[in-house]
């Protein structure tokens, strides 16, 4: 086993939608004590840093904006990261309270071309999520976590070198309660190596069996099995705006991240989507629903964002947006079209599908139509609009049955009553149909020529005793 640990040092800050330029900090509380757990860049110049008490921080800068952490949104965001990470390994888990995520990479190393290439790949990819991160690599879960917090990216790949690498690190990096850390420090120990050198029974007597077990797991002397995270089969992701927003631009940052995470999730499952629902929730009002359908299976976050933007730009917002909710409940295979190197046709079909999606996004789903035939003698019912998910062969089969049909005009019009009859050419074509549905029609169709030289397709309705214009021979 080889674990890559990803530590999000600014997690509570990074999950916020906006990047404030004024000092802002996230706080946590325990009893009556409140302290800072994450600070933005603007805090640094004011001399405010994480771990400070709220009173002390406010004394340095009274304008400091304080936001209490939301553990539920942190957990939610961490789950999304977990789903994203599944593209690298099927053994992923996380601890939202520690802002830490682990990926078992031992099995994926060859596939991604070695450790360096894999970490670089993850690093580039995680940048699109908009988090600041640190990596740690080690053969045990807890050691990887320590390397990540200590920002020792290189890490250790073999158990034999683990103790040497851990020993010089300060004991505050150990994942133990603050009381235990204090107790260790009070004895005079400073480095992890000093703890590792102690006999285990002595350690157990002084600091409890739980801490000893932790140390054993840290160095790999005791197995440390973890339950891998499994993202649910329906993909749901919510995002709360602390301050309601009223334009599309403000929505883009969280949306971009949501889609990047979704892309990771889809890659991890080697799947794609054709339908996505975005719900814009408002205060005390019906949410605005945005549904995106794509012609071909899709998982590219950039394309999805572009398509959503087209729709968002044309959506009228009834009120400010308090929350975004993204749902994908159906997944489809991406197909192997993207992998084909020498055949260009699938690529063309992909591009074509992308174009149709783009058109649909701006004009609406119903404006982009494919046509088909249906088996009905009534001219106005002899055709249909083919829906994009309908199989193509249902249309093709209809084609053959209509092969011996008489000529039809290029344009079909809604029947318009005629007051003056143009010159009729030739004999009529009798069309009788629909008597079995009660929607009976009995018509004699003629080709006619107007005095101005246009050719019309008209019929005389036997029941109504009236003439109608139905088509144009163009």
């Amino acid at each position, binding site marked *: 086993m080889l674990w890559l640990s990803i530590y999000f040092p600014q997690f509570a800050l990074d999950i916020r939608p906006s990047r404030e330029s004024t000092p802002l900090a996230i706080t946590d509380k325990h009893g009556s004590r409140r302290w800072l757990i994450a600070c933005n860049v603007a805090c640094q110049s004011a001399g405010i840093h994480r771990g400070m008490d709220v009173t002390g921080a406010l004394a340095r800068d009274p304008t400091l904006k304080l936001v209490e952490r939301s553990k539920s949104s942190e957990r939610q965001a961490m789950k999304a990261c977990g789903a994203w990470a599944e593209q690298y390994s099927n053994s992923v888990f996380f601890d939202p309270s520690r802002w830490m995520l682990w990926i078992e990479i031992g099995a994926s190393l060859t596939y991604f071309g070695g450790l360096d290439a894999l970490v670089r790949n993850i690093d580039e990819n995680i940048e699109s999520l908009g988090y600041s991160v640190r990596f740690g690599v080690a053969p045990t879960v807890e050691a990887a976590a320590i390397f990540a917090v200590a920002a020792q990216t290189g890490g250790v790949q073999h158990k034999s070198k683990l103790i040497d690498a851990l020993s010089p690190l300060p004991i505050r990096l150990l994942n133990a309660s603050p009381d235990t850390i204090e107790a260790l420090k009070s004895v005079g120990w400073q480095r992890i190596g000093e703890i590792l050198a102690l006999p285990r029974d002595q350690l157990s007597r002084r600091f409890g069996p739980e801490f000893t077990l932790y140390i054993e797991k840290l160095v790999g002397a005791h197995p440390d099995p973890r339950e891998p995270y499994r993202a649910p089969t329906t993909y749901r992701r919510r995002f709360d705006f602390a301050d309601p927003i009223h334009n599309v631009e403000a929505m883009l940052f969280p949306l971009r991240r949501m889609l990047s995470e979704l892309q990771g999730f889809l890659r991890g499952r080697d799947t794609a989507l054709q339908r996505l629902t975005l719900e814009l929730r408002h205060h005390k009002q019906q949410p605005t629903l945005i549904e995106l359908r794509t012609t071909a299976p899709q998982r590219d976050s950039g394309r999805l964002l572009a398509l959503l933007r087209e729709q968002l730009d044309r959506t009228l917002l009834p009120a400010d947006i308090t929350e975004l909710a993204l749902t994908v409940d159906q997944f489809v295979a991406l197909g192997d079209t993207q992998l084909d190197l020498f055949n260009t046709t699938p690529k063309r079909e992909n591009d074509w599908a992308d174009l149709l999606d783009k058109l649909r996004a*701006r004009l609406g789903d119903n404006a982009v139509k494919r046509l088909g035939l249906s088996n009905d003698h009534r001219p106005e019912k002899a055709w249909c609009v083919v829906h994009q998910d309908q199989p193509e062969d249902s249309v093709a089969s209809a084609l053959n049955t209509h092969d011996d049909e008489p000529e039809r005009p290029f344009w079909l019009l809604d029947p318009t009553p005629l007051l003056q009859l143009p010159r009729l050419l030739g004999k009529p074509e009798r069309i009788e149909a629909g008597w079995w549905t009660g929607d009976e029609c009995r018509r004699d169709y003629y080709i006619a020529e107007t005095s101005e030289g246009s050719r019309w397709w008209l019929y005389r309705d036997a029941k109504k005793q009236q003439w109608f214009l139905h088509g144009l021979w163009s």
Partner: protein
Amino acid sequence: MSRATALDQLLRSSPQLWNSRQVAEVRARDTGFSSLNSLLPGQGWPLGALIELLPKREGIGEMRLVLPALKKLCQEARDIVFVRPPHLPYPPALAKAGLPLNRIVWIDATSDEDARWVAEQTLRQGLVGAVLLWSDCTKDISLRRLQLAARESDALSFLYRSPQAATAASPAALRMTLSPLPAGLQIELLKVQGGRPARITLPPNLLPKPPSSEAA
């Protein structure tokens, strides 16, 4: 190096220089009508250029004129996009004319602006076989945009406009009015890039025969 060869080399190396004795090479597709082909510089509908068709009225054969070329494109598995046509392109007629319906896209845009946007996007994307656009737009800049988009593609780009537009200038490479005559469809070439204006009449077999004459 002699002066003549130097000049020759220069002519060949720079696309900005053009020898008037050479006819510019025009990429074109067969219209399906040899008498019309002979009047067009590339012996057919020019590719990558806007073609303006100005029918006097509807129902005179303005679609039949382009059908042979569209059919050929479909056989090459290229798609045909109808952008905001005035009526429903009737599927049984399309199928009968040899245009497989899975190659046809009907864009039912509500505004003229959307329609022009669609045509532009489709042309720029470069995969489509033909774009047929119906637009009432008279703005020179919009037409110029369409012409530029057409130039980037190797599609047939047909623009159908009302006959009143004939008197106004247009950036299209080929413009023609279509009018019905007892002898057939009269085509008047108003503007032919790389050619000269002309007039021909295509025989009336462009139009459907009444059922009675088929029976006879």
